[in-house]
């Protein structure tokens, strides 16, 4: 290990005296490292919130409801207000110049622009 790396104490030591169980004891080499941790969705499912009274606050029911305001439609490329919508690419656009631009965009870019507002076609 290089001198400057050691000097900066960049690397976390593997043995720390204040720990009762060391990392290498928990995850010995050879055993698969990234053991599976439940994702948030799985955690929420396991919480069984439906078994508790509805007025008790929990992680799921404190979420905000959908917005009451009408959706703001903005041009996917420029951010201007977008009165139009291209049926072919499904992109929203502000004016003819942007339209020209979106029609010359490769499909890959179209999809990434759509993905920005979570509207891309996801193939599974």
């Amino acid at each position, binding site marked *: 290990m290089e001198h400057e790396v050691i000097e900066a104490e*960049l690397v*976390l030591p593997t043995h720390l005296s204040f720990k*009762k*169980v060391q990392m290498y004891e928990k995850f010995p080499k050879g055993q698969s490292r*990234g053991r599976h941790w439940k994702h948030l969705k799985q*955690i929420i499912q396991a919480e069984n919130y439906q078994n508790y009274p509805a007025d008790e606050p929990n992680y799921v029911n*404190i*979420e905000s409801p959908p917005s009451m305001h009408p959706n703001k439609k903005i041009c996917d490329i420029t951010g201007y*207000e977008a009165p139009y919508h291209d049926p072919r690419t499904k992109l929203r656009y502000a004016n003819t110049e942007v339209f020209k631009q979106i029609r010359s965009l490769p499909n890959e870019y179209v999809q990434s622009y759509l993905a920005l507002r979570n509207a891309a076609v996801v193939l599974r």
Partner: protein
Amino acid sequence: MPFISQIQRQSDYHRFPPSVPIVIDNGASYFRIGWAGESEPRIIFRNIVQRPRHKTTGETVTIVGDHDPALLKYFDCTRSGPRSAFDADVVFQFEIMEYILDFAFDRLGADGSEIDHPVLITECPCNPVQSRSKMAELLFETYGVPSVAFGVAAAFSYKYNQKRGICDRNGLAICSGFTTSHVIPFVNGEPVYEACCRTNVGGYHVTDYLKQLLSLKYPHHMSRLSWEKVEDLKMEHCYIAQDYASEVGLFQKGTKEAEQKARCWQLPWTPAPVELPPSEEEISRKAALREKQGQRLREMAEAKRSSKINELENELNGLEFLIQQLQHVGEKDIPSFLSTTGYVSKQEIESAIVKTTQSLRKAKGEQIENEEKADTSNAEKYNLLNVDDSLLTHEQLKEKKRQLFLKTTSEGRNRARQKRIDEELQREKQNKLEEAKRLENPEAYLEQLRAKYTDLCEKIEQKKRLKTNGGNTNGNGVSGGVGRGERLSAAQKERMRLLTTAAFDRGKGEDTFGIRDEDWQLYKLMSKDNDDEDEKQDEDEAELSRISSRLRDIDPTFTPKTDVGSSVSEASRPRPLTKEDFQIILGVERFRCPEILFNPNIIGIDQAGLDEMAGVSIRRLPSKVRGAEEGMTNSILIIGGSCLYPGMSERLESGIRMIRPCGTSIRINKASDPILDAWRGAAAYAAAVQFPQQTIKKMDYYEKGEEWLRKYQFRYTH
């Protein structure tokens, strides 16, 4: 960057007795740890872990937080990027959390056999009990912590500011963090979680949105747009528009104001070296060199030619000598004599002589007057052609065939020559005619020529478009091709259609193909080479070039349209890169990105924005505290990293004014330090005498079970 990590190892760990709690603000973006009762956290670092491989030794190491990027050059970071223990605002990856805690306690100076201090750690509002118990388990079992307390960062921050008189006992905390935003109402100094609400939008989404937009806008500079850089750009330049529509209108109209608002990030760029035109000396030197080389080549060619002539003369002499000798040899000795020379008969030798003389002449550069000779001796040369086949021997028949072939080819050649001459004459005539026309009325002639030129240009252009686009002109002319269908020309498309219909017709019903004669026409249409269009086009192009050359001669103002034939090569030629190519302009993006906090549907999250959330929260207040809702808007505190944008308070005020009844008094305050107040508030609580009663002891954790842990709530009032 406003946040700077502090990761110097502390040396005074042993000064603190075991009763002093350690306070941790475990935020999704930054981790802060310090001692209860102090005013500043000791250690601050980004809440991320990297596990790169060391380049020389190959071992995988753990790096916590952000470090000098220059030191990372010794590591191979391509395999794994920075990872966080958080999913939204909930800790789920406790392996990573453990690395982070390791690093934090290590830097705090811990070196005993365990962490013998109570720990107060923050969590999100209504943290799922699974996450809470895993965190408790980690702290108790791995670090030997005697007791743990969990609190909400936003509440600590609110209480801290309440103590300083910035907000009241009743009020709203609007906390916009890294991955989520919360609005938490406070009644009598306690947070009311029943009424709080969360939208899953935060600083992370703003940065990510900005990063994506910029990399789509500047695909060439994608590599420069690292997460850290974009985060910096966001903090430096983003602001919140008071009214998105009118602000964006300024940019759309291209007003002066908008121009001033646009920011430009100049990437490092060095102008390409300008190539100086070669000097006189250089040119002459090069010319001399070229001349010298040419001379050498010519000499070489000359030498080769003379040697070839020599060789041929020798051969000829040898052959002539052979013939002379052959005359002295008796008739019956000929075969034996010839067998030594390699020739079979006298005729063969003679033909060899003729060949050699011909090539010798050629080598000497003399004209071969074969053709003329052939013309004169036509009758004798093709003597066999008029004789009937039956009168000829086998040999003669062969000869006749040869003569026939020769005759037809020579005739064809003559015809072609004749045609060329005719064409020449025709053109001459046409030119003369046009010249006459021009002289007669130069203006009208020029006009006519120009009209013809543009006409032809258009025609060719259209044909080209038809060919590349298959007749489907989709607005953008040259390169709109997306699908496969648009790459084919009209003729190819038609062929495809025929093929597919033919393939499909076969299967169904009665097969009547071939009953009518027209059916067989299909194969003709299908065959690949019926693109007779091309010839027509070539004709057009030839005509066009003729007209344009003529125009160039007589019209000084004429400039040929470049986009007709050479547009492709023109475009593909690399343009020298300029300073402007290395600029990243932040215009609308400056306020478009933070706008997602108020309109999460811009990034496809269908939830209420910050201003609406305040209304939702007040509506959710339970009926027993309904009286308090009047005062709620009078004490709104904004907390968290995402409230640092300029214009945040004003926008929130106008937004909340819209949804609250007319005449409501609205007072919005920014926290004294929106980022560190949470830790400071927590440190103050941990130092209070009541703190030990609020903690979860190790025994509690083992004996009382999960249901109790779920009910556990930190109390913020004493």
